């Protein structure tokens, strides 16, 4: 039993860190901080640079243009990005591409994977609808077969990235007569397809997301991923990968370390917040829980590497990470006092506003990607075999 990275993995990590130290500019960080998750020119350029280095497909098989390294190495890469404050949230690579590798036809793989690898193709997720949130199976967007095409009509909401992504990964009903979750299929097609309208809506963080209206959008039958009416299985696979990604500990670790540093700063009288044993104790409790999350992340990465699909583990990881993110931000602001309420760009903002940003983002992390209640259902039912209610 060994919990450490191998010497090769450590070396790989050093290599990435060196590359990022050399190539992540303050201007890029600044752009990411202010752009509200809509990549600006520097971020777009940087993504292509990563693609050129082959670092978007670290854990992909070589036959799909990847580096054929382990998933552990891929996770090292994303941790290092986080430690540089480059939080892409790029599900195209961390979830959808892995799902494509697992489920798509050979032709589809060749059609999409190289462009994903080069950073040219970004996909947004079209799952949620106004009346289908937690209960995705109740969605009403329809895709009707018409010759070699499907005609798609409906509406999606909270479609993050639809205003800059090139493609959408859309879940739609293909068999209205089948039981609710057995008549769904997944399609991938360009957002530029006629009939697609994207409208902005903004989150409480001020980040843009979108409504996507689909008005008789015609896509070729080859846009379907997997077999017809197997969409629920396809997105289950994608969601397992997504939860692993949402449950990353690195950003939380990054914020904790910055908070700790802030607490250790001394004032003119030589006093620091960390002198207070109560504050020490609160930070220690957070630290312990972040380490527990790290260990679970280690386990899921190791499982994926061994060809196992983390399922209850992925759900647990997502629960822990989202609740810890909120707790860290909320307690951190309490510890630092009112100035921790300041946002990026404000005079006197501590920690570049990450704590405030994280506090605003945390509610979404808890309900997004399947609410934590649904995740606990999954742990209980799939992990422990308890019967459905």
């Amino acid at each position, binding site marked *: 039993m060994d919990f450490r990275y191998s010497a090769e993995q450590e070396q790989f990590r050093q290599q990435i860190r060196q590359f990022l130290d050399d190539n992540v500019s303050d201007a890029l960080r600044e752009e990411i901080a202010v752009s509200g998750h809509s990549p600006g020119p520097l971020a777009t350029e940087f993504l292509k640079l990563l693609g050129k280095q082959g670092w978007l497909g670290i854990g992909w098989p070589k036959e799909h243009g990847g580096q054929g390294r382990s998933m552990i190495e891929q996770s090292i890469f994303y941790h290092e990005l986080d430690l540089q404050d480059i939080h892409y949230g790029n599900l195209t690579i961390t979830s959808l591409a892995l799902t494509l590798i697992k489920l798509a036809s050979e032709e589809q793989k060749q059609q999409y994977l190289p462009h994903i690898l080069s950073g040219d193709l970004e996909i947004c997720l079209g799952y*949620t609808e106004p*009346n*289908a*949130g*937690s*209960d995705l199976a*109740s969605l009403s967007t329809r895709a009707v077969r018409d010759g070699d095409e499907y005609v798609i009509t409906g509406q999606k*909401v*909270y479609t993050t990235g639809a205003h800059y992504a090139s493609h959408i990964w859309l879940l739609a009903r293909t068999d209205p007569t089948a039981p609710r979750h057995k008549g769904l299929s997944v399609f991938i097609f360009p957002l530029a397809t006629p009939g697609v309208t994207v409208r902005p*809506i*903004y*989150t*409480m963080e*001020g980040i843009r*997301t979108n409504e996507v209206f689909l008005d008789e959008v015609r896509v070729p039958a080859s846009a379907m991923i997997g077999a017809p009416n197997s969409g629920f299985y396809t997105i289950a696979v994608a969601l397992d990968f997504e939860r692993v990604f949402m449950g990353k500990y690195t950003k939380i670790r990054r914020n904790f370390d910055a908070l700790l540093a*802030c607490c250790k*700063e*001394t*004032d*003119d*009288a030589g*006093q*620091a*917040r960390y002198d207070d044993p*109560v*504050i020490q104790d609160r930070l220690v409790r957070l630290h312990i829980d972040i380490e527990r999350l790290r260990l679970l992340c280690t386990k899921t990465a190791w499982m994926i590497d061994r060809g196992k699909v983390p399922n209850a583990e992925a759900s647990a990881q997502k629960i822990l990470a989202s609740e810890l993110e*909120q707790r860290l931000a*909320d307690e951190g*602001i*309490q*510890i630092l*006092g*009112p*100035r921790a*309420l*300041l*946002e990026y*760009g*404000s*005079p*006197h*903002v*501590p920690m570049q506003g990450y704590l*405030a940003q994280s*506090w*605003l983002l945390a*509610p*979404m992390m*808890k*309900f997004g990607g399947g*609410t*934590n*209640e649904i995740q*606990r259902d999954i742990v209980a039912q799939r992990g422990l075999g308890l019967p459905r*209610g």
Partner: protein
Amino acid sequence: MELDLTSEQQQIKDAVRRFLSRECTPAMVRKMREEHAALPREIWQSMAELGWLSLPFADAYGGAGSDWVTLAVVVEELGRACDPTPFVDCIVTCGWLIQDVGSEAQKQQWLPPLIEGKLMLSLATHEETALHGAGTPPTTLRQCPAGLRLDGRKYFVVNADASDFLLVSAAMPDSAETSLVLVSPKAEGVELIALHSLAHANVHEVRFNNVLVPQEQWLGDGPVAQSRLDEALDRTQAFQSAAAAGGARQVLEMTVAYAKEREQFGKPIGSFQAVQHMLANVWTDVETAWLAAYEAITYLEAGLPAAEKVAIAKCASNATFLQACFTAHQIFGGMGYMWETDLHLWTRKAKEIELAYGGPHRYRRRLAALL
């Protein structure tokens, strides 16, 4: 023992709620936030006309000299409505402090226009001692031939640009006590620096550079006991606890309504046990936080030892308000997370209240000393 409101108190409560639901809608709060704007003066004027600005003040200055529970009921309703008004700052904290420590002439000068809604005040007492890891030099006041000179910096001054005067605390050389002065934000040497806070749209750092303060704007005409300021802040915390309990109850009610109506998996999400238990916990928290707030207020009013009650009310109500909001976000999902939805306005308010006038950590430390 009596835990019900009197019928008069209940009437005021209903009137305040009606007024606020008409005049202080979430849409308006959101717009103020978008525009970093202060409350429109006409709303403040209406509140003055309804007599609410007069509640804590003595008859002699045009006040209503009301009982404290009546005032608490108004503050609770403001909290419920996600209060965009400067009522607590202006009336409960600053106005009352003038009544506490001002000379008779000062009270005659400042209280009537305050009660009539013609004068808006902001509290400027917060100094950051560990901002950027370095202590800020304390704000100081010194005598000079023309009157007084003020130097220093205050942080998180709410509504500073829209107020007529700031109530500033400062140290006087050779005095262990505190000086409280009223300073116009437009006076020479006053500089306002906008801060961007997630909690309050309109908040500033205020710098005082050799600002001339007329002698008659020195409250009490000399340093006053620091304990008077502490008392005023404690009193404010007690009323803010009522506001927090009110905000929490409103958020709970909004969430319960949504949980009854929103269907997923073929039934209202409020029928899921996980959702029910989250809401049951919030309900329990709100009940006890509300009781704690009113117990503290009635103890203060009766002149009983209340430091412990205030600390408990503060800690209980703040945590409850935040937890109510977090729970609500979990149940509302996207419908509470978009900018155009209402819920997050309360969430921000909950965090603002928690940190204002000293956070829960300070009050738990105080309790530790009292136990």
